[in-house]
């Protein structure tokens, strides 16, 4: 057994020399000991170098999206690829987290002072990326621009329930609404509510702001090579705490196969828009995983109900009953989604779980066709390809299901710009796909927004009771009344079917296993600390 003196001498070169001189070790023992010491030093140096390198290297998250970002002014675009960036460059007064609840963000408190006055207290000490202090003046400027009839923005119908905005001090914002608006906190948490710096915007103007945006969010624009990559740097002294990474890079990877290949190879850390039939390839790969979230909206058939045979209620009901949604979910979506039970989305307030999923009953469908006196008139489904996930496959399946019950269904493919034109002109021949999103986690933000007078999918559907309930619920702060109103509206909608709900799909993302991140139902990509961690060094 070595005594402590020998042990101590064996750990240094000088010690080994003493031991050799004293005859406590042989020459071979000396050489072995010396090699051990030098080897340990080299290993330690290598580890230190790796640690130093790791500490010096930037932690970067690379995100592969299906298209490039087009605009960085948050009031010019609400497309999914753009909001992935703008919700991280800018902050809102409130933030909706994955649990569906609203949390403080730039506002620390909010309350309904009276039925038409919402008051928000702002967080103090927040600065924009250019150093300007964020105050109530910036909030007032942002909101007023969002519904300014002269501004070239697309967000005019979101905050236009506001009559005027008062700012009694730099950290208090009073929103006076035209009528009671129970949804104001939800509105300010989403599109149009991203707070922009008034002074900077007025100095540089619309175009320069769009090219070089300044916000108060956890990321700022570092560089942008269009169609190649957008680099965003993390703000070190962000009020909510610096995010997990130093940099996020957004890369447009429009084709699915290369996008998945980039993930499998480790070139990107996160990719979007994975169709269900590619899930296995990513999930079974040892280094990658799938994260999914039920889309906060529905895929529906929009019905041109002024055109025969769609002007017949029994015919529309037959169309819905002829759709085997469970089969579509199982075979096309590999179970990744849910069959809706009405036009109120699962996850929204006032969703009624007691309603059964929409029924498949081909016999009843045939009976209704007889009732409608259907004589075989052509029914056309017009669709572009690639606008919705699985739109082509679902379109083919739907026309086939309708043919099975005796409907003369036809599928026509449209080019995307023609499709947009037809939406504007309301000139579809019969049916088309639509994917309404529930903007405020509330039926007002989807069912009413789409089917109210002048709504996106209203077309020729008008029902006095539906309209009466929708108007009353929109301006009521009585949640019990609102719930009852929306349940009755959902029943009316399912009877008249201006929109035929088909499926509530899962939105699927591919990630490296070391990325701990969850997707949101409203398609925001949240990268703040509470939603992003990397589990590797």
């Amino acid at each position, binding site marked *: 057994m070595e005594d402590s003196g020998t042990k101590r001498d064996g750990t240094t070169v000088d010690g080994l020399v003493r031991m050799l001189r004293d005859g406590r070790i042989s020459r071979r023992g000396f050489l072995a000991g010396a090699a051990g010491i030098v080897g340990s030093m080299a290993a330690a140096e290598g580890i230190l170098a790796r640690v130093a390198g790791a500490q010096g290297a930037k932690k970067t998250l690379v995100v592969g999206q299906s298209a490039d970002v*087009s*605009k960085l002014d948050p009031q010019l675009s609400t497309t999914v690829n753009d909001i992935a960036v703008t919700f991280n460059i800018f902050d809102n007064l409130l933030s909706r987290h994955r649990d569906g609840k609203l949390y403080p963000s730039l506002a620390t408190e909010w309350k309904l002072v009276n039925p038409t006055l919402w008051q928000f207290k702002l967080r103090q000490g927040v600065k924009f990326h250019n150093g300007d202090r964020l105050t109530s003046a910036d909030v007032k400027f942002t909101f007023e621009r969002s519904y300014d*009839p002269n501004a*070239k923005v*697309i967000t*005019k*119908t979101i905050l236009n329930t506001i009559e005027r905005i008062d700012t009694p001090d730099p950290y208090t914002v009073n929103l006076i609404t035209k009528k009671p608006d129970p949804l104001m906190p939800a509105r300010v948490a989403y599109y149009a509510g991203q707070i922009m710096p008034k002074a900077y915007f007025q100095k540089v103007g*619309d*175009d320069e702001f*769009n*090219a070089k945006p300044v916000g108060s969010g956890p990321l700022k624009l570092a560089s942008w*090579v*269009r*169609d*190649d*990559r957008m680099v965003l740097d993390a703000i070190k002294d962000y009020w909510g705490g610096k995010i997990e990474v130093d940099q996020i890079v957004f*890369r*447009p*990877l*429009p*084709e699915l*196969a*290369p996008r998945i*290949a*980039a993930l*499998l*190879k480790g*070139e990107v850390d996160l990719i979007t828009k994975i169709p269900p039939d590619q899930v296995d390839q990513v999930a079974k790969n040892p280094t990658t995983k799938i994260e999914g979230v039920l889309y906060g909206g529905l895929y529906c058939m929009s019905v041109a109900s002024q055109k025969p045979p769609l002007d017949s209620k029994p015919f529309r009901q037959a169309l819905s009953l002829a759709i085997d949604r469970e089969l579509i979910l199982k075979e096309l979506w590999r179970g990744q989604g849910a069959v809706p039970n009405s036009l109120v989305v699962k996850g929204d307030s006032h969703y009624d779980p007691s309603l059964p999923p929409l029924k498949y009953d081909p016999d009843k469908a045939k009976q209704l066709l007889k009732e409608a006196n259907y004589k075989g008139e052509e029914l056309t489904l017009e669709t572009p390809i690639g606008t919705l996930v699985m739109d082509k496959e679902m379109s083919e399946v739907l026309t086939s299901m309708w043919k099975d019950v005796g409907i003369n269904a036809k599928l026509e493919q449209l*080019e*995307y*710009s*023609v499709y*947009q*034109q037809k*939406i*504007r002109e309301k000139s579809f021949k019969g049916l088309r796909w639509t994917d309404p999103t529930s903007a405020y986690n509330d039926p007002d933000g989807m069912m009413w927004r789409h089917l109210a007078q*002048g*709504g*996106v999918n209203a077309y020729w559907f008008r029902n006095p009771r539906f309209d009466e309930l929708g108007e009353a619920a929109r301006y009521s702060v009585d949640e019990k009344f609102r719930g009852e109103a929306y349940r009755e509206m959902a029943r009316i909608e399912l009877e008249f079917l201006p929109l035929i709900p088909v499926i509530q799909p899962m939105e699927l993302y591919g990630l490296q296993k070391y990325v701990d991140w969850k997707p949101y139902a409203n398609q925001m990509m949240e990268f703040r600390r509470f939603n992003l961690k990397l589990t590797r060094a």
Partner: protein
Amino acid sequence: MQGFGRFLIYRLLRLMVALWCVVTVVFVVMRLSGDPVPLMLPPDAPIAEMERLRHEMGLDRPIYVQYGVFVNQAVQGDFGRSINFRTSAMRVVWERIPATLELAFASFVCAIVVAIPAGVLSAIRRGSTYDNIVMGVALVGQAAPTFYIGIMLILVCSLWLNLFPTSGRGEWRHLVLPAVTLGAFAMASIARITRSAVLEILQADYIRTARAKGLPEFWTLAKHTMRNAAIPIVTIVGLQLGNLLGGAVVTETIFSWPGIGRLAIQSIYNRDYPIVQSCVFITAAMFVILNLLVDVAYGILDPRIRR
């Protein structure tokens, strides 16, 4: 030299006329394709908003007025402001020219370095196994869709063999797969034309004479054969380079290469007239300049043309 000078001036004039015709056709066709204003506004935008935007963009003026304004601006290199990007259209397009040229020339170099020697050897060893293999591969290169070639290269060379990145633009390794994908068709076409041209020349009397004189085969090939076979080869090379410059949209999409092709297609879908006009003008300009260079090359290679 005087004759060559006239030849050059004549070609330059033709170049300008060609450019003007291309741009005019694009102007007319884009406006016939539909109204871009609905694509720029949300579906529920009021009619007054649409009219305001249409007026701001000058789209409510008579078409001949729009054309006059357009030509006046085009002469100054101004193709208007991009509807989608909200900045100068020409600036957006110019940003993509380096990437486009990089990919096109890399593909071009790949193509000629492989195709010309392969085609010459095929001609010399006509009917041999080598010839059959090369022509077989060339047939596949011409028949296989670019999309398929690109995806297969990503699968094999990137995912399985881990030799190259899957996509994007960066260091030289990022260029290899897109260059081979884009150059595959050109490679095949040039190889086949080279083989045909060399085969034809090898049958000529003066080649028989050169051989009969005892000239080494290398010099027969280098000095007599290639010089005469160069005209059809230069023609196909020029055409293919034009295609490489303007026809890379599939390759750019697969490999996320930030070139003009992808920009042009996206702009067509978005009815972003200024961008489409700029892309077409730039591409047409590159194409006609290339044709001019090919014509000049003819003049150098074949003195009969200069006279």
